[in-house]
């Protein structure tokens, strides 16, 4: 099913006029982001009613998602495939418009590696440290997080409510045998809970600030984690510094993100996150912040959690 996509794409590439793909590699940033974030139905990662969104029309008509694994080749049309191809190239270009996200990725992975290796008692010097563990990546990262985790040996399931993201992620993951084992589902965390899926580690980065009801979202994440499993959440702190950096600087000055991506009022402070996780029976063990060095353009882990921060917690054994 998923493997037919690259073949279809190859056939398509041979026959489609090339000029479509040679047209600007960086489509309108706002469109790309909005498509990826919200898709066609304006739904984010939780089934809870979403806050009123500015309505807009996506760039191409996308058929409504018909189930968890909806990559049946017959439902794709040629136009879509070419669009995915173009979006995927942009998305995965580490020097392209998503550069800040790609730059932050190794830092986030370093934290995940260090905490989860310690949690599961794995050797951090082994190249496939997470062999045999089941992880779920809940979020809109298009596979940016799932692929490195798969390379580190984990059995990864990637979840996203937006069909397009899933397709893009699938296309890219199939390029490398190490990552083609990732299972991508177009669904929400709540639906997975209903299906009674369990994972050793549940990872959800940069998602909770876009969710309507963070407390319910955390409860779903906790329900997906096995007893004594791990949960990793990253988000932006609701502080003045975060307003200045993540909103003013990132959106208005540096144009890393389109304006309106983040709402300061939906940020959570680190204390609030710890509290709602506690209520969902997850006790937070470690937190770290991400610091950006504008001179080198690199992110590093730091103790300063006033802007971007990541938290690792373990599920306390419930009755």
């Amino acid at each position: 099913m998923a493997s037919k996509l690259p073949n279809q794409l190859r056939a398509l590439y041979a026959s489609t006029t090339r000029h479509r793909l040679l047209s600007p590699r960086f489509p309108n940033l706002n469109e790309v982001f909005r498509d990826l974030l919200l898709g066609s139905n304006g739904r984010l990662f939780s089934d809870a009613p979403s806050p009123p969104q500015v309505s807009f029309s996506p760039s191409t008509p996308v058929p409504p998602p018909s189930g968890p694994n909806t990559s049946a080749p017959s439902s794709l049309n040629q136009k879509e495939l070419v669009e995915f191809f173009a979006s995927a190239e942009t998305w995965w270009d580490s020097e392209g418009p998503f550069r800040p996200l790609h730059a932050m990725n190794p830092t986030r992975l370093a934290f995940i590696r260090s905490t989860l290796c310690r949690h599961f008692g794995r050797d951090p010097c082994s190249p496939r440290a997470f062999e045999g563990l089941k992880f779920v990546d809940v979020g809109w990262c298009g596979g940016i997080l799932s692929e490195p985790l798969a390379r580190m040996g984990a059995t990864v399931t990637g979840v996203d409510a937006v069909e397009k993201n899933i397709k893009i992620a699938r296309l890219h993951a199939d390029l490398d045998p190490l990552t083609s084992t990732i299972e991508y589902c177009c669904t929400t965390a709540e639906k997975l809970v209903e299906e009674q899926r369990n994972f050793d580690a549940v990872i959800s980065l940069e998602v909770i600030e876009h969710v309507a009801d963070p407390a319910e979202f955390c409860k779903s994440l906790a329900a997906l984690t096995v007893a004594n499993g791990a949960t990793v959440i990253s988000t932006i702190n609701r502080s003045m510094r975060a307003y200045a950096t993540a909103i003013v600087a990132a959106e208005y000055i540096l144009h890393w993100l389109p304006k309106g991506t983040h709402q300061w009022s939906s940020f959570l402070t680190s204390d609030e996150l710890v509290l709602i996780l506690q209520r969902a029976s997850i006790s937070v063990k470690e937190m770290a912040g991400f610091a950006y060095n504008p001179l080198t353009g690199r992110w590093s882990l730091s103790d300063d959690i006033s802007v971007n921060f990541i938290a690792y917690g373990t599920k306390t054994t419930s009755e």
Partner: protein
Amino acid sequence: MNRLIERKIAENVYRLKAPKKNLCTDTTAKVPSSNPGQPGQVHQHDIAIVGGGMVGMALACSLASMLLTKHLSVAIIDSNPALFNGVGVKKEGTPDPRVSTVTPATISFFKDIGAWKYVEDNRHAYFDKMQVWDYTGLGYTRYNARDVNKDVLGCVVENRVLHSSLLSCIQSTDFPKTIYPSKLMTLHQNSSSMGVGSTSSASPSCERGHPVKLDLSDGSSLCAKLVVGADGSKSRVRELAGFKTTGWNYSQSAIICTVEHSVENHCAWQRFLPAGPIALLPVGDNFSNIVWTMNPKEAADRKVMNEGDFLKDVNYALDYGYGPHPRSSTLGNGGIFSWLKPDVTLSANESFEVPPKVVKLASERMAFPLSLMHANNYASKHVVLIGDAAHTVHPLAGQGVNLGFGDASSLSRVIAEGIAVGTDIGEVSLLKKYEAERKLENIAMMAVLDGIQKAYSVDFGPLNILRAAAFHGANYISPLKRSIISYASGEQRLPIFS
């Protein structure tokens, strides 16, 4: 479809069982690999190192020595028969004129990867003293390892010894390397990132996840995630991958040869002459290596002139030729620097010495032109350059191969860090990290060396005085001397902001 697969498997098994030619005639270590040069078969590797010279092998050894990278399948492409047969270096006999001065930083690197013990088994020469002066006789500088509380300033080792040590080191591990005794012809990358795949179905293409295809001169092909260009200053990888370079030719050539003294030499000597510096480096026993830079016409003449005349010229250049000896100062009295007395280094007390006389020419004379070259980028998608493929420098400070070893060490560390967090090793952002680190250091060193080369190529009264002042300053101002030693030893990464 299944039958096709079965047939392919049967073919491959047959090929593997085909009698392997025994290329080794003596007891030196053999390379444990299957005969890889089979046209029609495409081998898949993680990393393809094009060029199995000192720097390429150092990278391979470094990857073999780290837990995170020792599982990577590496292909080394080099048509040098020494690699495939195994190298045995004779310990006796005269030293080869191609030598390198390895800095203490490189010695540590070699110790980390486990190759230094093989170097110590062969001829090598540590030195702890260095003297630098010029033809004007206005000043000189003496360096001693004790100035920075170390035992040695560096070690002079023949290139073939370094190479065979690295080869022995990697053969002593069970690192999954394969050596291809061939040359690189072409390089193909999948043009689009989404893997459109090869156009013809007749030629076997790469498996998923190995986007670069290398075609070799013996008809075989291999695929890799990352191609490392370690193939020297005329790098084919650099040419194929389209890296642009900046640089210029120095209007100088260098003559190298091995000479013999009647006494042992433990000091490195360098005298700047009007046409270029002459360096005398100890290589062990009573032998020394000469690196003499001069203009190309003189180099051509000196290469063919008879031995006696050549030795006379050499002694003349090292001793009284072109100008007087510098006057050595009396105990601790540095003239205007005498106020620094308490802090003066050990070597500032040493007086000027004349280098030992050269009595015999022990090898053939080789000449090669000198140039400066720097690749504008070291890394692009799935391709990275290290060593001379990325930069060449003037030999006046013996830094060339040390920069290359620094590149190998940095790249292997960056790859290990990438694997630790599950990055694809061919990813540009990872390779750019290596580039950012090394480019700054390499350019700084090249600027310093080029500056020195230019400063010493002009014979102009006030500039001569300035150079003399520089000699005196370096000799008597201890913090400056320590800083120079530590930068040249590779302990300090950048000349100014350490």
